[in-house]
């Protein structure tokens, strides 16, 4: 599959701070890729390097087949970037903001009015299109910034914390938008702190810490690599007796991680051990109504990464 992004050993320092330190990764076209990491991990710097607005100290990148250091303007003409703050012109109206973006992104002049009107409608801003943006709520500004990022119909989108500070309804709109972008075949790089959001939206994630990419893959890949087998939850019709708990705990390799009124969560090394534990519970008189593995969440993976020795 053609790569939308191929970074090879990218590095950039500011003074003595190594903001991005030898980062290599690839993103396929049409993929939704999550960049995770705490504040100051280097996510925004990495986007700036890929968009050609910062020059790397070392390493190189190809973005949509172009080198952003050499062809920065061409790369940016095919990328849309939603910055961490909406960065909209507050003294201008929403329509003026989008018309300006259309001009600098080279949207053909005869189509600018139509394109602006379409985006205003898509982001439910048409009723306030001719008001200064300074009076907009944060959610409206964020929607306007998203509309601006799409003004030139980009192939690749960098969304830096797209739901930061948004209420649940507005966040939901952003999630729907990312899904729609995926359906349209666009590539999306999503920087976020919201692990649930990343898990729901991203095909793969990369985790940055202190400028270095410390993990890369699907959530499943990372959990298999980093964590023990995911826990097995058993639900019972009746309260769990000591006899049942003892029988389950006696199954080879199985330990009880959590015990609740009608539920046991087991750490089982494999599916065979889990099946033995369930059989033991039934033999001890436990009436099992549900059993299944609970996949590790991205949050568990993320914190395992943060706690792992460097």
């Amino acid at each position, binding site marked *: 599959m053609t790569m939308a992004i191929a970074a090879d050993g990218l590095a950039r320092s500011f003074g003595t701070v190594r903001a991005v330190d030898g980062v290599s990764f690839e993103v396929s076209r049409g993929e939704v890729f999550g960049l995770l990491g705490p504040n100051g991990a280097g996510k925004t710097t990495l986007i700036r390097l890929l968009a050609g607005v910062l020059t790397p100290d070392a390493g190189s990148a190809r973005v949509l087949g172009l080198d952003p250091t050499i062809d920065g*303007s061409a790369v940016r003409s095919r990328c849309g*970037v939603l*910055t961490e703050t909406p960065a909209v*012109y507050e003294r201008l109206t929403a329509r003026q903001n989008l018309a300006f973006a259309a*001009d600098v*992104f*080279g949207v053909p002049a005869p189509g600018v009015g139509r394109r602006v009107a379409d985006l205003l409608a898509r982001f439910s801003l048409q009723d306030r299109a001719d008001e200064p943006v300074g009076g907009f709520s944060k959610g409206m500004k964020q929607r306007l910034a998203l509309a601006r990022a799409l003004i030139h119909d980009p192939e690749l989108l960098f969304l830096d914390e797209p739901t930061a500070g948004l209420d649940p309804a507005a966040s939901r709109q952003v999630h729907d938008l990312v899904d729609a972008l995926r359906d349209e075949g666009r590539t999306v790089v999503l920087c976020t702190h919201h692990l649930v959001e990343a898990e729901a939206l991203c095909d793969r994630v990369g985790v940055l810490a202190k400028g270095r990419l410390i993990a890369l893959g699907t959530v499943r890949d990372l959990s298999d690599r980093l964590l023990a087998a995911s826990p097995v939850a058993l639900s019972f019709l009746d309260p769990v007796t000591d006899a049942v708990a003892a029988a389950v705990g006696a199954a080879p390799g199985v330990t009880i991680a959590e015990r609740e009124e009608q539920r046991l969560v087991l750490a089982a090394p494999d599916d065979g051990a889990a099946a033995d534990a369930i059989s033991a519970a039934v033999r001890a008189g436990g009436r099992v109504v549900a059993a299944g593995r609970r996949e590790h969440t991205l949050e568990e993976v993320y914190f395992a990464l943060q706690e792992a020795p460097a």
Partner: protein
Amino acid sequence: MNWRTVRAVATKDLLEVRKNRIAIWSILGLSFFLSVGMPLLIGLLPFAAGPSSGDLGPFETLTHLLPPGLQDLPIGSRMVVLMLGYFLAPLFLIIPLMVAAIVGAESFVGEKERHTLEGLLYTPATDLDLYAGKVLAGAVPAVAAAFLNFGIYAVMVNLVTAPLVGGIWFPTVSALALAVWVGPAVALLGVSASVLVSTRVETFLEANQLTGLLSLVIVALMVGQGSGLLLLSLPVLLLVGLVFYGIDVVLIRIGAAIFSRDRLMARA
């Protein structure tokens, strides 16, 4: 260079300035004072109706700058004509300088303060497009304000001095040269210096204070004229304008050469 982008950046900046009430009222206030208030004030000063003969003391040597028909005016009238037509005319250059400095100083550092710079730097506009757009945004209103105010000033001077002189005498050739030749040069000086400063400093206030130092150039011209050290005759004005244009070209070239998206973004 992509002219559509340059024009878009300039137009956007002008729209923003137009909605900046403080900037607009500052420009209008200064324009009104220099173009309307000053001629009225000078025309109403007591010396306008001063003695009909005598000399102007140290300013007497300036009389020869006046058109022949005005050299024999009564001393009070001559003083008014000299002040409005010669001494204070360089003060006019403050207007293009101020407009240029306000728009120019806002250009990059203003965007940074309003958190819009990052969005601008993510556009496909090249460094040269951005720099040219910012320079154009400052130059156009500065030159327009200079010409408009000069027109108003000319009307006011003639209105005020008509009873003393008996006709229309302003603008003189040197005043015209000041307006159409030196004025745009000073506007460009203000823009090129302020945009350059704006790319290097952290706050609008800092940029504005630094570019405000340019008004010393105007003060120097006025002092030169008033002291008789630098009489702003036509050849001198042409030369002064030429020097300013030369400085403008150098500043714009330096500004465009050292403009760095990377540097701006690294500090954004």
